[in-house]
């Protein structure tokens, strides 16, 4: 009897082979896919030494680290400026404070009887501007010791910059370490991994900078010297109040006779004594001047005092303004030097990393700062 259920049972043995074939195909396909996946996820493992710890990172984390390092390096300039600015402001305040304090003292002298006479005498006898410069230099700048203070500031600025830089670069290292230590990948053959020593690169960068830093501030030092030196006194003299005070002399001078008046008005180096009017005229002129001066002492003192009250405040303000400007210039010069230096630091940081990667023979597509 052919059973009704016969076809139910008739499962050919070929199905065993079919199963074997299917399983084998599936295994081969999955095995291949798995190997591919493994290769892709294992190929780019890197060992990055940062902040004294060797981190093992896969390609993705490594790229992220590179990007972050790049951003941090790019922000180095800003970061440093933020760190340096309050310090620099405070130091500039202390450096310029004696100078500002010396202004009233100078003005006291400037408008004192003695000072006025001296000015008048110099106005009659020589180049008032030059003399005023010398006076300012002696009574204002030298007395307040600004040059020494600025020199000291320069030196401190350099040292401080290096110190802050060291700290900031150290912070970059520790930031990267704390951010990427938990993202480490497991590696079986750790020693064969390409190693990028960021610590070495960062340290090398700072080492190289140390000497350059001195050179850098020496360059800035020239500007500081300029601001604190003769150019400053020249600018101080050129102020309008100072010129107004000088004009006062010009108005007083007519009482002293035409000759002297011309001399004062021109502000030239011609004096009454060297006027080309022959020996007699010279004698007469000198005598007239002396008489006029004596008369001035008697009659014009009140006028002088009145003018003083008129010009003194303006002069004070002007001197202070000039000092503020000089201060801003010094500050700018120092900051420009710092910025230059930071930029070169950043460049050499990039170069250091590039060299480190070159030494580790990292394929170019995995390089931290691009393949350059």
């Amino acid at each position, binding site marked *: 009897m052919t059973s009704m259920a016969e076809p*139910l049972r008739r499962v050919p043995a070929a199905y065993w082979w079919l199963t074997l074939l299917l399983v084998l195909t599936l295994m081969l396909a999955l095995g291949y896919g798995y190997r591919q996946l493994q290769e892709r996820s294992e190929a780019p493992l890197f060992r990055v030494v940062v902040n004294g710890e060797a981190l093992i990172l896969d390609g993705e984390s490594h790229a992220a680290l590179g990007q972050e390092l790049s951003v941090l390096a790019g922000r180095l300039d800003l970061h440093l400026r933020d760190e340096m600015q309050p310090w620099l402001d405070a130091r500039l305040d202390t450096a310029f404070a004696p100078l500002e304090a010396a202004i009233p003292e100078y003005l006291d002298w400037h408008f004192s009887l003695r000072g006025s006479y001296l000015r008048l005498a110099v106005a009659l006898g020589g180049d008032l501007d030059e003399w005023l410069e010398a006076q300012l230099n002696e009574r204002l700048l030298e007395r307040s010791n600004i040059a020494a203070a600025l020199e000291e500031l320069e030196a401190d600025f350099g040292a401080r910059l290096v110190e802050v830089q060291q700290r900031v670069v150290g912070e970059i290292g520790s930031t990267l370490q704390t951010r990427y230590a938990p993202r480490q990948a497991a590696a079986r053959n750790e020693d064969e991994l390409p190693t990028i020593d960021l610590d070495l690169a960062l340290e090398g960068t700072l080492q190289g900078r140390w000497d350059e830093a001195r050179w850098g501030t020496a360059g800035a030092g020239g500007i500081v010297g300029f601001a604190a030196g003769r150019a400053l006194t020249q600018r101080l003299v050129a102020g309008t109040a100072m010129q107004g005070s000088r004009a006062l002399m010009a108005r007083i001078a007519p009482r002293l006779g035409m000759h002297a008046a011309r001399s004062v008005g021109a502000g030239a180096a011609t004096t009454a004594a060297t006027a080309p009017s022959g020996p007699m005229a010279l004698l007469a002129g000198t005598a007239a001047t002396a008489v006029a001066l004596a008369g001035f002492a008697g009659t014009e003192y009140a006028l002088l005092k009145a003018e003083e009250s008129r010009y003194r405040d303006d002069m004070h303000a002007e001197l202070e303004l000039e000092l503020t400007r000089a201060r801003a210039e010094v500050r700018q010069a120092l900051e420009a030097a710092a910025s230059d230096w930071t930029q070169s630091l950043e460049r050499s940081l990039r170069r250091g990393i590039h060299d480190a990667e070159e030494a580790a023979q990292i394929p170019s597509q995995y390089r931290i700062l691009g393949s350059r």
Partner: protein
Amino acid sequence: MAKRLSERCRQVLGRHGHVVLVAGLMAVWALLGPRVAAALLLPVWVIVAQLIFLGSFEAARLRRRAWLGQYLVAASPWQRWLRGGLLMALWHQGLAILLALLLLVKLRLLPPVYWPVLLMSLVALVLIQQLLKRRLQRHVIGEYLAALVRRLLVWPAGALLALLLVLTALWLPQPYLVGLGWEEAVIRHTSTAAGDGLLGAFERFGQALELTQFWAMQNALERHGLGQGLILFGWFLLLLTQSAFAWAVVRLAVGADALRDTLGHFRNAGRKDAP
């Protein structure tokens, strides 16, 4: 007395040897070391897949035959064309291969606590089978009795096992994953004991799936903000994996029974033909 007991034992073993064999196969597979298991993956996979395939193919053909008998004339050639051939076989082969893979991977990851549950439900399966057979004997055409019993067996036995597995999974301690990110949870709790090969990869994948399920359930309970979607996902994963595993186990046992039946039938036919 003892003799009768041992005879009874042999009788039970003879009648349900296939279930014992299946349980033994599963236990051995679960106990193998990672290297041996990786080496034996191909034959074991083929055997298990073939057993599952046999059971489900038989059930599918039974279903098809009922349908054909309902609508087609007995003499029609369509009866032969539509009774289930290569296409049906391929479909059930694919299903069986995937189920076998799931079963094998899950067995490798199974904590020992599950084994009593598994064995208990295999015993239950045998009991249900006997009960069904006794009940259906008087009503079903003799030729189809065994096949029909097997077909009807899958649902109750599978549901019972799935229920027990879900309860065990909920009762067992889980790794504490509250507050952890998914990625962190998976990385921290995936063991590296499995080998490097394909089986190891599957095992890790299975672990990750399990951890995902725990993570979703725990974090959905803790963080009310994440809420509904996550907890649904967790429960869905739990029910899906456990019931798929249960289904695979029952299908394996049923398939072994079917194979035994077929072999026994052929042997009987051979004996009949011999004289």
